[in-house]
């Protein structure tokens, strides 16, 4: 079966006053029907830019310079705005990290959901309204009928994110890109929203790309995981495999930063020293090398994605060599 979404060689660059920077560097991945793919990584490593590139939402100065994005067999990147509008919202949609600013402050949420339904269907205003109420009820909005008449500023963050989800789901999309959907919410609401997304996804057999820097979320939700660092995918694999057997030193370090309830009292959380290099497109070798405890001479050359079997691959020559000899770095 062909993949629902196939990203080949996607490269996105931003041109500013100081030249052109490649923020997303030759990324390949795919998403199958009904699958949840998580993209993890620190801030500034290209996660959001990847999703914006797929949606065709790069702002001024940003452009996809190479690669292709096939959605249901059609290349999104070569579509006109009109063709894109037919797909966006209908089959492919996205929710943003900040529900506070994702709704127009001047209109009731009922109005906004109804508008987005009517943009894609031939429903009358009344039918669209009924559908909107229905959707709000599905996303767990209490008193959906009443909530239709509310303005965004009268709703709490969690309720606003629910409204956003209702809007995103208004046309039964096949793929939902959730860009850090719970970052702005507190932990209990976060759990509720993720539970809701998971349930809705199952009911509708919808695929999802979840972008986050919260490893805990990834473990809960993901079928497959892509770890991004400095514009590259540095490790990918099935969630279980990857958590049990992280190959890339960065993935390991990332997992080490997470506290566990089984930790002994004196375990110190390990931070990863340093930060994501700012102009990472100039680095010829491994982009993580400067922060990596296992650095060797081989790290200065370009790094390939080395396969470790079972769909797992990592962009680390040290890990690959160690794997051949049956040891881990």
């Amino acid at each position: 079966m062909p993949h629902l979404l196939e990203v080949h060689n996607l490269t996105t660059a931003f041109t500013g006053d100081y030249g052109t920077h490649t923020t997303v560097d030759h990324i390949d991945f795919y998403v199958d029907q009904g699958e949840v793919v998580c993209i993890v990584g620190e801030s500034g490593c290209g996660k959001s830019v990847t999703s914006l590139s797929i949606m065709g939402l790069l702002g001024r100065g940003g452009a996809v310079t190479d690669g292709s994005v096939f959605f249901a067999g059609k290349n999104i990147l070569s579509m006109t705005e009109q063709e894109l509008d037919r797909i966006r919202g209908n089959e492919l949609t996205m929710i943003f990290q900040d529900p506070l600013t994702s709704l127009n402050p001047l209109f009731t949420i009922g109005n906004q959901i109804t508008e987005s339904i009517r943009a894609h269907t031939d429903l009358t205003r009344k039918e669209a309204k009924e559908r909107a109420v229905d959707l709000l009820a599905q996303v767990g909005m209490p008193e959906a009928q009443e909530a239709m008449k509310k303005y965004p500023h009268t709703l709490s963050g969690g309720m606003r994110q629910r409204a956003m989800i209702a809007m995103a789901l208004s046309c039964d999309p096949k793929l939902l890109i959730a860009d850090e959907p719970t970052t702005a919410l507190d932990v209990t609401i976060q759990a509720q929203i993720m539970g809701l997304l998971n349930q809705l996804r199952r009911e509708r057999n919808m695929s999802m790309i979840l972008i986050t820097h919260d490893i805990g979320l990834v473990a809960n939700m993901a079928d497959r995981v892509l770890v991004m660092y400095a514009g590259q995918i540095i490790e990918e694999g099935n969630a279980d495999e990857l958590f049990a057997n992280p190959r890339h030193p960065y993935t390991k370090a990332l997992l080490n930063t997470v506290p566990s309830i089984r930790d002994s009292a004196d375990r110190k959380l390990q931070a990863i020293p340093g930060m994501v290099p700012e102009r990472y497109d100039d680095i010829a070798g491994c982009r993580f090398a400067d922060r990596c405890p296992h650095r060797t001479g081989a790290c200065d050359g370009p790094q390939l994605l080395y396969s470790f079997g079972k769909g797992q691959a990592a962009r680390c020559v040290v890990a690959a060599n160690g794997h051949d000899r049956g040891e881990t770095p």
Partner: protein
Amino acid sequence: MKKNRIDEKNKKPPGTDLAGESYLHMVFRRFRRHHLAAVSLIVLGVIVCAALLSPVIAPYEPNEIAGPFAQAPSRDFWLGTDQIGRDMFSRLLYATRISLLVGVMATAISTVIGVLLGLVAGYFGGLADMIIMRFTDMVMSFPYILLVLVAAAIFRPGLWNIILILGFVDWPGIARLVRGNVLGLRETNFVKGSLVAGMPLRHILFSEILPNTVAPILVYATSVLALSILDEAALSFLGQGVQPPTASLGNMLNGAQSLTVLTKQPWLWLPPGLVIVCIVIAINFIGDALRDALDPNGGR
């Protein structure tokens, strides 16, 4: 169910439920706090009503000779008569009507032009932005009154020509204002959200972005209104505006160019001058208060 809701509302002590109040309510409440603006609104209301009802109120036909010429105010002619014997009070009423019409129409035209150009420039950016904004700068940098005079000289002066001319030179400020707002709004998540939802461009421009710029546009439009009334007066004063016998506040002042009128017959220029001052000040105060009242971050 409905009855219940009303009961619940009544239970709350008045004035405590600020969150539940609608935006318009809040605007109205905050507007009332500006006493000057409230008074201005009343003054402007009286002037506008008088202007609208001038055929009913005016004791004489504005363009007909009704009595002796250049007579000081009397019981028959409340504001006296002009040099050819027309009743000044009737003329003043009709003149106010014309001046307000010019102001409102010119403002409407320039607002429409400014909003459209600002929206296009701000939203699409790039070349469109460059061309539109440079054109805006160009129009702004012309000596204003000269431009209007030249235009008035080319197209024969007359009521509708004045309206069009003023309308076509007053828009740059609004265009800039709208563009600046749109630049910010196009990056907001709700605009991106509607893009993601596959909303048509028309919807994004006019149903998402435009409503969010209405408040500043409204405030700016009040100052354009005041300005275009002044401009009409200036233009008519110089004889390039509304042409006699039609009365406008500006061409009524025209008479004051003669020294005898200025020194000996103040009833010929004082009333229209005062009406202009009142209208412009009232509009400016109202604009000021509107700016405060419409500001969503203004608190309370």
